[in-house]
């Protein structure tokens, strides 16, 4: 029941739509004030510092773009081009690189269980919570200077507007016009700075419907599920490019995650 129909249950006509909107905003605000997301950050920090893998190493020397071990603010400047892999990487993709390079783990093992659940969150979810929490207050500044960054941004834009799947949707079908909503759910316009900033700076997020912290890769994956697309590969070029496009569009806004969502 986590499809497009988020609010299948009708509630009786009791107030105007405006009042309903105001009350839902209040709900979301109060939700954010009491978020368990910080628990994921704590656990993620412990995992970040834990030595594991064949090389019995921690991720503390992982280069997220600012040099080995620099975590503070790193997320606000992702995705970006990395010389050692010669590609544009988002946070999740980069974490996988570090697990392989620093800890000596193989890709099959590190990608075996990327999306966890409330009873057993994934290592990726914990790590992501920690790293993004270290960027709170940092202004979004994903770069587009390297030729590969330019290409990634352009591809991301194309991916955003690409209509396909059984229902002919693109991201823009729902996130392309002002003041639209699905059921009661407001839809930010992600191709414009205001909407992209609002959404991007509050993801990844703790979702109370899953009692679980969800990553940006998950967010994109589940959008495609609801769009009736086939499943995108985790940290594939398309999903990284799409993330890059959104991050660049959101530039300038202070990062404020991990957020808390319904």
């Amino acid at each position, binding site marked *: 029941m986590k499809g497009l129909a*988020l*609010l*299948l*249950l009708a*509630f009786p006509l*009791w*107030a105007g739509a405006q*009042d*309903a909107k105001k*009350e*839902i905003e*209040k*709900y*979301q605000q*109060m*939700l954010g*004030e*009491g978020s368990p997301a910080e628990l994921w950050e704590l656990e993620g920090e412990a995992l970040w510092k834990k030595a594991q893998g064949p090389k019995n190493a921690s991720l503390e020397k992982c280069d997220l773009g600012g040099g080995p071990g620099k975590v503070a603010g790193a997320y606000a400047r992702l995705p970006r081009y990395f010389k050692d892999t010669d590609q544009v990487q988002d946070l999740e993709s980069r974490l996988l690189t570090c697990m392989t390079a620093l800890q000596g783990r193989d890709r099959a093992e590190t990608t075996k269980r990327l999306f966890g659940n*409330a009873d057993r969150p994934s290592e990726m979810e914990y790590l992501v919570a920690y790293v993004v929490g270290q960027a709170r207050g940092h202004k979004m500044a994903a770069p587009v200077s390297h030729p590969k960054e330019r290409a990634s941004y352009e591809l991301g834009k194309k991916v955003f507007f690409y209509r396909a799947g059984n229902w002919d949707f693109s991201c823009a079908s729902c996130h392309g016009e002002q003041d639209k909503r699905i059921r*009661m759910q407001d839809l930010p316009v992600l191709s414009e700075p205001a909407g992209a900033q609002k959404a991007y700076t509050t993801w990844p997020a703790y979702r*109370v*419907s899953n*009692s679980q912290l969800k990553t940006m890769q998950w967010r994109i994956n589940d959008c495609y599920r609801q769009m009736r697309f086939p499943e995108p590969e985790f940290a594939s070029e398309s999903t990284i490019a799409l993330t890059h496009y959104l991050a660049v569009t959101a530039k300038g806004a202070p990062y404020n995650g991990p957020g808390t969502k*319904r």
Partner: protein
Amino acid sequence: MNKIRRTLLGATAALLLFKPFAALAAAWNKDAFAAKTPQDALKGIGAGDVAASKDLVIEAPQIAENGAVVPIEISSAIPGTTSIAVVIEKNPFPLAAQFDFENGALPYVKLNVKMNETSDVRVVATAGGRRYAATKEIKVTIGGCGG
């Protein structure tokens, strides 16, 4: 009730040095929490007779998008408030929590509760041996007791 409990605690403290929490377990009002109607829940916490009070404030959204997490903030301006209980009338087990305040804790709490469906949320405060209540209806669009 607190006094009785504390006496019991004192009496058994020596036996419980290594498991201090076992003593607290005795302080869980099993009957009230097992009550299936709001009336029985109120009876269970000794609040059969309550007076409505404007000094007891429930801050909560009127609509919760997800009943699994409904934020509620409660504060009492009734002088001498020593306890606040939360009763969600339409939950299968209506009594959600009871908070006892001592030694200078303000009669204030903010917590997240589960709501099975749209329901009145009744808050009961105890002050000077008397009970006061406030009620707020919260609409739930997706119920939250399954998980």
